[in-house]
């Protein structure tokens, strides 16, 4: 997993720490993705980070702190992971015209779909979402 790859890289620089910008450059991913993964690691208490300024650029320096001397994860540093809580609202009140089911004039392919639902890999769903791009 990408998370493990990044964690291993951070752990390999245990004393000095590593710049976040060096991580995404080395692995070949974009900075946004790298930031998301590092945030998850931070929330799990496996890494800590501090701001660092190099010239005009600001980045994070990250240290691995995941395990103590007994090889256990430091419980006190673990924070609940970020979770996007979707507000529960009455759908019918918000969508009197049912337009949520449309992008432009195209109905969501999920409506009346009888195929096995695999949103992650469904090509029809991906094409429908692409209408928003």
């Amino acid at each position, binding site marked *: *997993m*990408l998370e493990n*790859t990044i964690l291993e890289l951070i752990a390999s620089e245990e004393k000095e720490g590593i710049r976040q910008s060096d991580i995404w450059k080395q692995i*070949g*991913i*974009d900075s*946004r*993705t790298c930031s*998301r993964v590092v945030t998850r690691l931070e929330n799990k208490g496996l890494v800590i980070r501090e701001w660092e300024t190099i010239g005009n650029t600001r980045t994070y320096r990250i240290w691995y702190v995941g395990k103590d001397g007994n090889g256990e994860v430091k419980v006190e540093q673990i924070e609940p992971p970020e979770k*996007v809580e*979707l*507000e529960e*609202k009455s*759908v*019918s009140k*918000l*969508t009197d*015209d*049912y*337009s*949520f*089911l*449309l*992008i432009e*004039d195209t*109905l*969501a392919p*999920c*409506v*009346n779909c009888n195929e096995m*639902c695999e*949103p*992650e890999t469904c090509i029809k*769903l991906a094409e429908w*979402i*692409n209408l*928003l*791009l």
Partner: protein
Amino acid sequence: MDREVLENPVVYKYFKSLIGDDGLKVLEVIPDSEITDERITELVGLDLNTVRRTLYILYESRLMKYRREKSENSGWLTYYWQIKVDELDRVINDEIEKLKKILEQKLEFEDSNVFYSCKYHSVRFVFDDAAQFGFKCPYCEESLDYEDNSLVIDAIKRKLSELGSF
């Protein structure tokens, strides 16, 4: 069925995806009151099987109900069909809830993975799979390119925000 109801673009498209163009013709001649399948056939000019198929699909979607009467003389059963227009709002809102959950699932997948794709083949790999193939397309051996999916993530969030999420 009331033409005004079918004028709503989502309702129209919902029925079109459910029962097709012939089904829509059937729907247009169905009154609010009871009607037999033979009478619908006369009104719409389609064969009885198409009419019955449409009625059963609508019945399965809980948008149609029937009552049957047995003729005392011949013993034949006659089916009287009636549309349940009041159910339409619930049925479509069920679809909205279903789509909301599907988009949330898709968003979680896009947000927690990194993707690589081949410029010659329309295939997409998550990081683990791409790494397993040595970041080369298993079909043509060309290098896989990192795929920035941030626009897709933003698009899904934007769509979900129509329901007051995000």
